[in-house]
């Protein structure tokens, strides 16, 4: 049966994936089930007769179709239906059951590893952007072209700060997990 589709504007920062999971779960309760995730646009199928819980996984190190299929097969065995991917973020769902909060990560060590994977990519991108920002700053300065405030440089600075902020947020979560405290 073909269900009507609905598109929604959405954007999330990399360290907010648990909030995105709750958002998807809430929409599923209202009959809107994620089918595709693109930057800023998520597509949903309308079907009020079912309800799912969603979990996101971040796996930047899986290379090759065969290894990716093995990964999906293991999750499918455990009851997780693969929906779609956005970069290295993979979206899984399973039928909702009252009082059950199924998790992909069930111990601190593996949860800390998940956060570290996200943090590592933020760190690399953040550092690369910081280098570009500083290079631009000194170039513009030397050429006398730097207007204060320069809109491009301002946006870039905000981006660099955001990446740095995300990196530190995840750092705190990993530390808390390693100390044996729940976050």
């Amino acid at each position, binding site marked *: 049966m073909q269900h009507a589709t609905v598109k929604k504007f959405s954007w999330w920062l990399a360290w907010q994936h648990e909030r995105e999971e709750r958002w998807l779960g809430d929409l599923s309760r209202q009959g809107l089930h994620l089918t595709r995730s693109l930057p800023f646009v998520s597509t949903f199928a309308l079907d009020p007769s079912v309800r799912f819980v969603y979990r996101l996984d971040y796996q930047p190190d899986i290379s090759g179709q065969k290894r990716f299929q093995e990964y999906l097969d*293991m999750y499918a065995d*455990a009851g997780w239906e693969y929906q779609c991917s956005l970069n290295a973020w993979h979206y899984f769902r399973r039928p909702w059951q009252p009082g059950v909060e199924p998790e*992909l*990560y*069930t111990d601190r*060590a*593996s949860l800390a590893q998940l956060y570290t994977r996200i943090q590592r990519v933020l760190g690399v991108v953040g550092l690369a952007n910081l280098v570009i920002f500083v290079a631009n700053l000194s170039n513009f300065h030397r050429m006398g072209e730097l207007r204060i405030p320069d809109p491009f440089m301002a946006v870039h600075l905000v981006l660099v700060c955001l990446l740095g902020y995300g990196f530190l947020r995840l750092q705190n979560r990993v530390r808390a997990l390693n100390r044996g405290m729940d976050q």
Partner: protein
Amino acid sequence: MDLLPLTEAFYYILVTLCAGPAHGYAMMQAIESMSGGRVRIGAGTLYTAISTLVSKGLIENAPDLPGADSRRKMYAITPEGRQVLAAEVQRLEELLVNGRRAINMVEG
């Protein structure tokens, strides 16, 4: 050995594979039943744990059994894996002996 103490997931994966090669889902089920339903390992935790154990050389990919579902990848414990497991069991035994002695002293 810097691998000790093992997490429950690592420990039970090694314990399960001592009986013979298995795929991920079989490990999940074996661990749940062995622990009387207490230890339920999530798919992400299992996947991460298997990758880590393979990279540390404690388990390895095993050839598919004839007639088995070749879609599922099989894993086997390595000699290093058995050594680490034995060392962990010894460490846990020491913890248990001392704990029991302390409790008996208080009760006795």
